[in-house]
């Protein structure tokens, strides 16, 4: 049943309204980051203006934003590597040993991701202070991994479940052990899953704010906390806030544009098949 011309028109009108509502804030971030300060709140809004890179220049010269980007990258890559290692191994075990125990463990792991961060921020603060790793990237790598390991486990479990076990059995008959089979047969075949899990872990860590705010100071400050700090200074630096926001939203946007079909699986924890 193909829609009539009138229906098509209606669909496009509705779509235009929806797109306008949902894209305006993103448009504002980009445009405001390029607007000269006097035009920032001009009435009517200045749709045509002379774009300036001043805010981006300020962002990197008046504040060590590149150091904060560095911190965010270290934390995000560190936590991603950590979570992929532990998470993939656990996912394999849960996928291959199917009994009541592994099922229980799988749900326990998933529930770890869903606990409210604010509830554990004080204990983390005290523990890290005792260990002397407060305000270091390591502290955030550990904390983010508690969220990223469960995500990796559930994503990779789905990929391992879909892999025919006959492939592994063939390798085992050839005399390879469990670890060798996993490393040489299973992992290469589930490489797309690893990539998806890695990107999710990375973006979660990159975007996180609450733990970064509480557990870092000047030394290990990440980009989200840095951008928020432009707000708390005496005059609100909207240009720099928007320039920083644009830098922060780049990884997420690239992810959506390149591999949106994995979003369903990753964000619904497998409760909806993409």
């Amino acid at each position, binding site marked *: 049943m193909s829609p009539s011309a009138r229906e098509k028109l209606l669909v496009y009108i509705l779509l235009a309204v929806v797109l306008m509502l949902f894209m305006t804030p993103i448009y*504002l971030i980009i445009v405001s980051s390029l607007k000269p300060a006097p035009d920032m709140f001009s009435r009517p809004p200045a749709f045509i203006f002379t774009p300036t890179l001043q805010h981006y220049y300020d962002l990197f010269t008046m504040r060590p934003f590149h150091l904060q980007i560095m911190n965010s990258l270290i934390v995000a890559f560190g936590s991603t590597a950590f979570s992929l290692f532990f998470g993939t191994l656990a996912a394999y075990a849960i996928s291959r040993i199917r009994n009541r125990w592994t099922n229980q*463990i799988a749900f326990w792991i998933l529930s770890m991701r869903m606990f409210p961060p604010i*509830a554990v921020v004080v204990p983390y603060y005290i523990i890290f202070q005792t260990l002397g790793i407060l305000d270091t990237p390591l502290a955030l790598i550990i904390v983010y991994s508690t969220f990223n390991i*469960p995500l990796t486990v559930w994503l990779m479990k789905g990929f391992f479940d879909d892999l025919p076990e006959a492939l592994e059995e063939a390798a085992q008959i050839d005399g390879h052990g469990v670890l060798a089979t996993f490393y040489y047969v299973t992992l290469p075949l589930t490489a797309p899953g690893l990539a998806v899990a890695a990107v999710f872990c990375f973006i979660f860590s990159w975007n996180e*704010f609450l733990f970064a705010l509480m557990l870092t100071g000047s030394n290990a400050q990440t980009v989200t906390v840095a951008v928020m700090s432009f707000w708390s200074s005496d005059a609100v630096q909207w240009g720099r806030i928007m320039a920083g*926001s644009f830098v922060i939203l780049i990884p997420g946007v690239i992810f959506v544009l390149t591999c949106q079909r994995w979003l369903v699986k990753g964000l*619904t924890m497998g409760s*909806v098949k993409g």
Partner: protein
Amino acid sequence: MTAGAGSSYIIEGPAMRHQVSRNRRIAVFFLLPAVVMLFVTTIYPMLYAGWLSFRNYDLAKPFIPRIYVGTANYAEVLTSQPFFHALVTTFKLMAMTLSVQLVLGVGMALLVIQKLPGMALARTLLLIPMMISPVIVGLVWLFLYFPELGYLNYFIGLVGFEPVPWITSTKWALTAIAIADIWQWTPFIMMGTAAALQSLPAEPFEAARIDGNSRLDVFLHVTLPQLKPVLISLLFLRAIDAFKIYDIIFVLTKGGPADSTEVISLYIYRQSFTFWRMGVGAAASFVSLVIIVVLITLFFRSMQRSQSAQAR
């Protein structure tokens, strides 16, 4: 599976013995590291929070001994007006965001599954808000709501309405936060619903249409019942997230004006870091953990139901 008496292996034969020892090896080498890791990094802090919740502890004065106060912190949390108010505010916000996200999200899903030129791109663009850091979402909405300067009131004025004191009045602040959350997470319901819609078989719809039912009838009586398990799972995921909401409120209102947007997370934050009463904060954390465990359990049940519904 208990790996008990070795004699049972003989009865089950060598193949089974091989399977059991292989499983045990996988369990030890593969599962144990993650379990130990998660246990140390999540259960230990929670136990610590539990320990704190029975004590009087001021983080700003670390050398004062942490005195055992029994259940006093819990008594205060459970009987105090501010905690109850925070709980009500949390669920109010949850009700506002979930209801709008459900209706709008399903509507948008029906829109973006139309096979028309340009639809794939539109659908992709609509997913972007979900991947934006909640702090950035808060900041851009702050830009829009900003008193005197924000563009939202300018456009509302153009249409002929009075300016709205979005984040400065107790009447509107919670709505302002709900709008920002709705903007970010409606695409989530849209995405999940669209994926589920496309995996539904086409025949029942065509049959129902040929029988002369209106489009609305088909949607209400054929589509919606089939979508129900998935929608319930999606809503529970949103509910769990809504219960934890922190970043957007921290940026927009910090719980104010006059506690009107103080949800559970903000209450815990204020007790712990404004009043430095870590014990009370920890007790409130534990009460909120109990509530989230209930939500998570309900989600797991709905998830198993929706998975078996999709497997059919």
